[in-house]
């Protein structure tokens, strides 16, 4: 995908926010480039929301630098005209209707009309004329999404955006993300579960206990992923029948059924199996969730 060389849309360098002992974030470094969907992943409490609130100048860094479009958010509140934001803990004015909230934010952002918001609301099947207090969690979340996109922002920051949305609406939402990316918009997408971002994100950062464990493209992560292959043989194979094969690891064995973990090609295993009477082969696609879990564990074991 084409990326503009130049100022990153988001740059965090040595970004630190301390709150006492355990919480906060420690020396985060990452760039988000124009036109990408950047997944920001980590378990709850890893510091995702803290980072996002630093980006929006709702809180201030203890040390380090954050830049949006090359400038400091603190001294440039006008910058937020170019940003759409969906908070993780979305709270709306209970007594206002969706239409009123969109109208209010359209005025504050200097839009001539909230018409774009109304069109989005229609797309999400959002009832605009009921007060927020009578709306379900999913419908409130739709208002949050619509207001984040309605002013066609260059950068959209979404904190756990699909929580409370039913699967059909989630599909609409992902389609919207891909559309805005195709027009060169940038999306910063936080989540605590990988499946939520793996189909749309270009790159992901993995956060744990306030630190970035890694930043990778989704393809690179996928190539790290192990494929599980379950093979059932007609007879019980010798203990060391599959030892020493390139990229093949025997995980477990129940009588004549063996589970292998593969890294890379399946060919060495297939060649070795040819010497046996094979009753069945069952292969599971690379699961990024497993990669993440193993990375978390490594991060945890590291000193």
């Amino acid at each position: 995908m084409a990326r503009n060389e130049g100022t990153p849309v988001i740059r965090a360098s040595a970004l630190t926010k301390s709150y006492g002992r355990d919480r906060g974030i420690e020396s985060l470094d990452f760039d988000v480039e124009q036109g990408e969907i950047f997944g920001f992943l980590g378990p709850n409490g890893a510091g995702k929301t803290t980072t996002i609130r630093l980006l929006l100048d709702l809180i201030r860094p203890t040390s380090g630098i954050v830049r949006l479009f090359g400038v400091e958010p603190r001294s440039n509140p006008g910058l937020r005209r170019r940003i759409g934001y969906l908070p993780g803990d979305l709270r709306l004015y209970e007594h206002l209707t969706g239409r009123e909230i969109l109208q209010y934010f359209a005025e504050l952002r200097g839009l001539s009309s909230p018409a774009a918001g109304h069109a989005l609301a229609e797309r999400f099947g959002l009832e605009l004329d009921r007060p927020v207090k009578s709306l379900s969690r999913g419908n409130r979340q739709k208002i949050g999404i619509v207001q984040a996109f309605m002013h066609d922002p260059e950068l959209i920051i979404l904190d756990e955006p699909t929580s409370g949305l039913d699967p059909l609406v989630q599909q609409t939402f992902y389609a919207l993300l891909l559309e805005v990316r195709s027009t060169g918009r940038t999306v910063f997408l936080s989540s605590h579960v990988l499946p939520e971002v793996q189909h749309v994100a270009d790159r992901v950062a993995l956060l744990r206990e306030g630190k970035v464990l890694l930043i990778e493209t989704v393809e690179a992560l996928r190539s790290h992923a192990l494929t599980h292959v379950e093979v059932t043989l007609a007879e019980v194979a010798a203990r060391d029948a599959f030892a020493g094969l390139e990229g093949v690891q025997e995980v477990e064995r129940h009588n004549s059924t063996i589970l292998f973990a593969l890294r890379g090609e399946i060919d060495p295993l297939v060649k070795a199996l040819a010497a046996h009477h094979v009753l069945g082969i069952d292969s599971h696609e690379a699961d990024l969730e497993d990669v993440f879990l193993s990375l978390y564990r490594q991060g945890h074991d590291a000193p």
Partner: protein
Amino acid sequence: MLRSVFAKTLRDSRRALLWWSLGLVGLVAMMVSVYPSVHQNAGLNKLIQDYPKALKAFIAFGGTVDYTSAAGYLGSEVFSLMVPLLLLIAAIGAGARAVAGEEEQGTLDLLLANPISRRRLALEKLAALAAELSVLAFVLWAALAIGTGLAGMHVGLDKLAAATLDATLLALLYGVLALFVGSAFGRHGPAVAVPVAAAVAAYLVNALAAVVSALSPAQKASPFFHYAAGDPLRQGLSPWHTGLLALAVVTLAILTPLTFERRDLS
């Protein structure tokens, strides 16, 4: 009505303003309707003149306690306690809701994700508070003007306006204090508790100074002293006392965005 933070804040308080207005009108109507029977009641006046000094200090407003004149009656019955009480409650409530209320309800994050600076937000909230109190001040003044006219009480409209303005500035001072504390700490509880405690203390210091001479230096620091000391119902506006109240309001109002800009939102 949703064009700005200022306009939305006023819109949100329209119902509260209606109720406070009804309360003020009711208060004035009740007090004014009793006046004809009170001011000719020599026995009652004698009784009040014989009140202990300490008790008189609590019902005094400006000059002496005097139920025979319209200005004296209005001062003691309407302005000494009831008007500041109602206006202060309204002002402190609105001031505490302005920033701390939004912050505790969690709507401030999304509001400040809009292209509006913290300073701008604080100033619009302050302006909305001032506008709300101006509405109540006008209602109070109009109710007094009509009420005194109907009851044949001779207090000039300018004198009523002066007393109303002083009461409004007093209430605005504590309302701005609530807004200041709320935007400095982001919590609704202290934003109510601090100005309430400050107002009760200032009220007691002012009233007790008449009896406890040790308090008289502190009396000059009490906003309640400057509220009544110029005797606005008889003398009209006192540039000195009214000016001091206004200065205190403006000082706190200037500090509000400065502290709000610096801190982390909760």
